């Protein structure tokens, strides 16, 4: 394919791309949309966060869980010792 043909073909691709959203008209009902976004976005976000937490929970290995448990135990032990020393 020579340069002229290549450019022509590429212009055709650009036309096709630009025309892709023309088949549909998007109309906004402003007051309805704003009211919906105000009321819907928060619960939707909560659900989305819940889904993400579930995903993380499923993908956290037992090794990581045990490791966190051990760290927590160590922190509480050290904190206890510190508090006892502080009381004296």
């Amino acid at each position: 394919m020579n340069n002229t043909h290549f450019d022509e073909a590429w212009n055709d691709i650009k036309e096709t791309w630009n025309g892709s959203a023309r088949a549909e008209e998007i109309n906004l009902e402003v007051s309805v949309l704003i009211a919906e976004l105000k009321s819907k976005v928060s619960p939707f976000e909560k659900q989305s966060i819940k889904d993400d937490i579930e995903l993380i929970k499923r993908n956290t290995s037992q090794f990581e869980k045990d490791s966190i448990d051990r760290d927590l135990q160590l922190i509480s032990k050290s904190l206890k010792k510190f508090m006892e020393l502080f009381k004296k």
Partner: protein
Amino acid sequence: MIETEEEKFIQIIQVHKAKIARICKAYAIQPLDPQDLFQEVVCEIWKSLASFKGKSELGTWIYRVALNVCYRAHHKNKIKNQQTIHLEGVKFEISSPQESPDEMKYLILRECITKLEEVDRSIIMLYLEELPYKNIADIVGLSANNIAVRVKRIKPKLLECIVSKQGKGE
């Protein structure tokens, strides 16, 4: 006149809705729906507009949000059917028949774009949107030179794919 955040938001959507729609349509391979993706992008812009600091051009930021939402939806959908938001305030009306020769051409173009690697896919969509290399580079996190090199490589690849599909009468 002082423009409220809500007025600003609506104006942004009005101005940029066609470009958002093009990106969403390109990512809307079954079971994803372009209208659902469009609504997700509208929601994301609503949520994130306050955090837009104007470091990049607004139009560039919109592309980044749209690509992120579509990319995320594309990958989440592979895991399981995710909950999607539905907005009554956004109405879609068909203004020309879907089965036109242009629509067939578009389906072939989309299929060939979908076959590209993820980064190349974003780059070529943004290039088709006529964004300067620098802005494309800001969005995908590569240098402008790298974008130029990649575009030069992607264009013939895409064209070859389209010609071969058109030749097969797909």
